[in-house]
């Protein structure tokens, strides 16, 4: 039996962060993961993360994965892949399946970071090939370079459903419909808005009646539901799709901890059954720690901080550091963690109907139902101003923990302040240079540069663009509004790509000045190209 100071189960964001932190204090650490690739879901995340600059915001998920792995390797952490932990026993012993044998290991401390599993929802035909989990779609397209289908229906409007839908568009698929039984969009409004402006229709208060097809999915029937989730007769609608993607939530994979004898709790706000643990992630069993989704489903950003705290706590438990050091280091991390847990998407607000932001701005019901603002609504928000000359228009209306825009602006035009969930405010006294750094930095792609005085009768609008083929200067096409409808002809007048933008291109289009506050996306006109 091999022995380690700390055995980590799961090489995702939480597990790797914990391993890195523990190894920094001198612990001998091994990480087991049943998958062939490390990083958990990080390497499938091609979008820029939310959060604070200090905690990897605006960095794309897969790059964070590489950084963590490199850190772990540099610190001598052993990462064993294709290694399935089959059991966690008393005295912190584990059995691991590696190739065709079972190996025994003993840790002086154990950290379980097994993450979460996707929830599924049954409907007629849900076993047909072509019905897949949203995670499957991500895995296929972002790891293996194969799209799951051509015409997709996404079920679920939480952040997973919204983000994966956007990734499907980036991979060249058509998202035919985004469906959710709930009456309002569950994920961030900015994620919904970047889908809506490409023309993806949202069907809230809708459910799947059945998947059609004999050997595989050839279509789907959806229908509207009432407040009691019953389908409303006469509302059924058939859509031609070849793929149905399910993004209906995650449940912690905490079975190892239950098996080990940890005290468990059933907590719907954490996604299901989770071990009871203290602020350092220590369970009811001394020396057995948890971090990340296994202890309550949240975002990767918080999983990484939880992992670091638990890694340091394991070091203290084994006597590598004093309690005072733990208290001091953990305090700073905990305050970062609690700032990420603020705002209207905080765990305690799940299921609540929040009508106003902390600042008192009314939350757009149109955004929550259709995925975009009505024209008149958007100008109320503090990031949206009408100014002569080029300036940033920030269509950010919800209190979410994210602040990279504030630091992105070299001229300090954008202010969020110390509270990371505050809405960004555009300072009209500052002088925008039109550099576009904020446009590329916004993980929600909610910042546009508008210049109503571009030339006589015309305005320019700079939009973030992450699709291929990238239009070229002089290309003509259509400007689409926030809902994805064509509003006017548009011409591309500038295309900027730069390493600092990290694959977000800035497309500047010219539209009639009356469209300056309407046009938010560009679609090439292939007939005239």
């Amino acid at each position, binding site marked *: 039996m091999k022995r380690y100071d700390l055995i980590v189960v799961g090489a995702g964001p939480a597990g790797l962060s914990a391993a890195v932190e523990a190894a920094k204090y001198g612990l001998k650490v091994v990480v087991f993961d049943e998958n062939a690739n490390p990083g958990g879901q990080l390497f499938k995340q091609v979008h820029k993360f939310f959060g604070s600059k200090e905690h990897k915001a605006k960095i794309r998920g897969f790059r964070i994965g590489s950084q963590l792995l490199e850190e772990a390797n540099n610190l001598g952490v052993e990462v064993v892949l294709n290694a399935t932990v089959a059991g966690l026993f008393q005295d912190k012993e584990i059995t691991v399946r590696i190739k065709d044998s079972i190996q025994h290991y003993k840790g002086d401390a154990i950290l379980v970071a097994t993450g979460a599993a996707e929830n599924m929802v049954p409907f007629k035909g849900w076993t047909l*090939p072509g019905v897949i989990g949203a995670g499957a779609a991500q895995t296929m397209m972002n790891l293996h370079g194969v799209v799951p289908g051509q015409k997709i229906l996404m079920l679920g409007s939480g952040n997973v459903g919204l983000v994966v839908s956007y990734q499907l568009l*980036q991979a060249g698929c058509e998202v035919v419909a985004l469906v959710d039984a709930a009456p309002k969009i569950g994920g961030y409004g900015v994620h919904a808005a970047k889908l809506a402006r490409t023309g993806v229709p949202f069907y809230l208060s809708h459910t799947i009646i059945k998947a059609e097809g004999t050997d595989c999915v050839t279509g789907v029937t959806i229908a509207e539901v009432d407040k009691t989730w019953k389908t409303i007769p006469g509302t059924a609608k058939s859509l031609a799709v070849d793929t149905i993607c399910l993004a209906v939530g995650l449940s912690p994979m905490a079975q190892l901890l239950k098996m080990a004898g940890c005290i468990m709790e059933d907590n719907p706000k954490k996604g299901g059954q989770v071990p009871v643990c203290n602020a350092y992630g220590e369970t009811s069993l001394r020396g057995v720690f948890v971090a990340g989704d296994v202890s309550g489903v949240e975002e990767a950003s918080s999983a990484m901080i939880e992992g670091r705290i638990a890694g340091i706590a394991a070091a203290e438990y084994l006597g590598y550091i004093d309690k005072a050091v733990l208290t001091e280091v953990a305090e700073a991390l905990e305050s970062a963690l609690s700032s990420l847990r603020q705002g209207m998407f905080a765990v305690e607000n799940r299921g609540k109907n929040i009508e106003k932001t902390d600042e008192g701005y009314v939350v757009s019901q149109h955004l929550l139902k259709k995925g975009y603002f009505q024209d008149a609504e958007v100008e109320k928000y503090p990031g949206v101003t009408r100014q002569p000359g080029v300036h940033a228009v920030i269509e950010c209306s919800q209190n979410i923990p994210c602040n990279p825009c504030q630091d992105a602006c070299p001229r300090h035009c954008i202010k969020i302040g110390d509270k990371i969930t505050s809405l960004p405010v555009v300072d009209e006294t500052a002088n925008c240079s039109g550099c576009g750094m904020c446009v590329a930095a916004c993980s929600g792609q909610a910042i546009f540069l508008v210049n109503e005085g571009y030339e006589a009768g015309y305005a320019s609008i700079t939009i973030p663009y992450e699709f291929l083929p990238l239009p070229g200067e002089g290309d003509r096409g259509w400007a689409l509004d926030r809902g994805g409808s064509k509003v006017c002809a548009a011409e591309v007048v500038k295309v900027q790509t730069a390493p600092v933008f990290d694959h977000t291109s800035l497309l500047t289009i010219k539209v009639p000045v009356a469209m300056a506050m309407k046009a938010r996306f560009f679609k090439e006109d292939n007939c005239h190209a």
Partner: protein
Amino acid sequence: MNSRIKEHPILGKIEKGRRVTFSHDGNIIEGFEGEPISAALKAAGVMVHRHTQKYGAPRGIFCAIGRCTDCVMVVDGKPNIRTCITPLAEGMIVETQYGVSAKSTNKAEGMA
């Protein structure tokens, strides 16, 4: 219909191993060494991986990470191989699984 992403706006060109051939129910298909068998099948337009034991219902890729086991097939004569996490190799013989065996085996059992 091509399921392979030629170039991705964020990831660029997706790196693959060398081109190999394998057989699927007797048909020769191309894929890339080391990618999951299921990815190569998907790219070739194959949706049905198996038919279930009880109802004979078609199944294919569902979770794509080796959890759900819906995509299992008979690979090189071995049934219940999770094609979504098993790397493709030159010359593999991949067969649609019926219940817990390949179709040909079922017939043989029937005759015995």
